[in-house]
């Protein structure tokens, strides 16, 4: 037996907003319907459904996957929820890939949803319980701590300045001006980022993506089905994921070794030997601006410590040699956690099809990578798409 090749044949995406009028199941439904329409399929054509969504604490429902089931098209179907924290959005299509590559499904619906606005007074409060309940939670930690700690370690290691980091936020928020789903697209300057409220040094408010509501969906199909459905299948040729130890304070935070491991797994599967040359467009996860740089290095798209210089040189602009986050990323489009990851995979899908409209990167890209990251700075999820 050999593994079956898996193609992306359709996608759907809602607007990302601070507070959606729609409920979680309704958000999911909107994305699913749009994906079905894009592939000219009906719900009855879908064999299996896998849904990714981050903590139950956001939507405020225990067993959130079961709550979202009917909106995600899971009624009377094999339906399952996958969950790797912030890495879930890119893991969801990886889970879909398992369904199709194994032969369990010919057509699999992949859904990602997040409705963070349900959590009061602020979704950030849900994050205190990501820390170890005995050895860390009594210190009253906030999510921003770990980013601030990691960002400082990264800056210190390579001698980077706040400006070097802020440039990513400026680029992504500008890129997002062309994205119809965008929540916080705007023209800002490096000075604007550095003048924005200081939350946890060195992290400013504009270094961070917003909290958002939104959903995304993607349809995966086996090779024979894909060829019937479209003359332009985009192949999901490499998948990788990796989880590092829970004892996060015992690893050096300057480098995401788990992202590198996940990337190597995906590149090996896709037959990619020199990622910096063979990959034409990338969507690394950018919930904080320094994370884009961190992840470019973990994905081996550049040397360690080199990502900031490439950004300063304009290489990562949409018209640069290596466009990074042409969608606008989490910093510009918004960050409904799981939905953001899938939005990134969808962006690569559209870029490779040549359907990214105003966001289309030049040079006829044929290979792209999307990546997400999550848990306690601990999990990397990577997909390689190819035309």
């Amino acid at each position: 037996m050999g593994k079956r090749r898996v193609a992306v044949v359709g996608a759907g995406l809602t607007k990302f907003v601070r507070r959606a009028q729609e409920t979680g199941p309704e958000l999911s439904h909107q994305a699913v319907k749009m994906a079905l329409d894009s592939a000219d399929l009906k719900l009855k054509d879908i064999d299996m459904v896998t849904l990714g969504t981050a903590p139950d604490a956001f939507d405020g429902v225990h067993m959130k996957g079961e709550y979202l089931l009917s909106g995600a098209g899971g009624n009377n179907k094999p339906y399952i929820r996958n969950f790797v924290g912030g890495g879930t959005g890119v893991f969801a299509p990886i889970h879909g890939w398992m369904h199709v590559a194994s032969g369990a499904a010919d057509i699999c619906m992949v859904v990602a949803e997040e409705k963070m606005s349900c959590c009061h007074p602020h979704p950030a409060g849900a994050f205190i319980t990501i820390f170890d309940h005995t050895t860390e939670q009594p210190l009253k930690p906030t999510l921003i701590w770990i980013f601030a700690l990691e960002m400082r370690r990264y800056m210190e290691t390579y001698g980077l300045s706040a400006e070097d980091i802020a440039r990513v936020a400026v680029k992504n928020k500008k890129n997002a001006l062309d994205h119809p789903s965008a929540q916080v697209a705007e023209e800002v300057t490096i000075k604007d980022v550095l003048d924005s409220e200081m939350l946890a040094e060195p992290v400013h408010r504009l270094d961070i993506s917003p909290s958002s509501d939104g959903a995304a969906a993607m349809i995966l199909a086996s090779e024979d089905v894909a060829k019937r459905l479209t003359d332009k299948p985009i192949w999901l040729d490499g998948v990788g994921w990796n989880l590092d130890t829970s004892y996060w304070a015992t690893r050096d935070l300057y480098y995401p070794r788990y992202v590198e491991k996940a990337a190597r797994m995906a590149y090996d599967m896709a037959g990619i030997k020199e990622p910096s040359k063979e990959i034409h467009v990338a969507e690394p996860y950018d919930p904080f601006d320094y994370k884009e740089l961190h992840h470019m290095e973990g994905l081996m798209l550049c040397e360690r410590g080199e990502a900031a210089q490439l950004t300063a040189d304009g290489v990562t602009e949409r018209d640069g040699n290596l466009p990074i986050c042409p969608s606008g990323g989490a910093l510009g489009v918004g960050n409904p956690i799981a939905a953001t990851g899938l939005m990134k995979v969808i962006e690569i899908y559209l870029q490779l099809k040549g359907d990214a409209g105003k966001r289309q990167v030049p040079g006829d890209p044929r290979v792209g990578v999307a990546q997400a990251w999550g848990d306690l700075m601990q999990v990397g999820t990577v997909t390689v798409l190819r035309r």
Partner: protein
Amino acid sequence: MTIIKVPVKGLSSKEYERSLKVTWQPELQYAWDNGIAIGKYLEALKDGKILGSRCEKCHRIMLPARSFCELCWRPVDEYLPVKDTGIVNTFSICHVNWDASRLKPREPRHLPAVIEIEGASAGMGIMHLLGNVKPKDIYIGMKVKAKWKPRKDREGTITDILYFEPVRK
């Protein structure tokens, strides 16, 4: 298919205020079993010590104490106290609380740090707070020492260490 129009309506603050809402505040309570290793770790804190565990195969002295070596996949060989001094690996000066509310201008800032503890293997850090130090004076590589609660007030929790403060020569 170029995505041009996307569904879903965002509510403005005003619309949100006016909308009907269902609210629920769950009363979720847990009492987690500490087990062998963390049980010992907390006992040691009460005794004014930071407890690690040692694996004879990889020769690591690990923090916090654990009952098995997750890399060698075997039980640890020994529990042993390490020092209560360490080196700041990274730190932040934080102006917000855990629920995203903002500190008032005069309130002292939170000073979280990863501290590599001396006596444990290189890189073995724990997250804790810094104290008795001006924020601008903190730097990576700074040597710090645990400031313990008075013995009679210790309860066997991580907060038995109030904070880590600079070692002044």
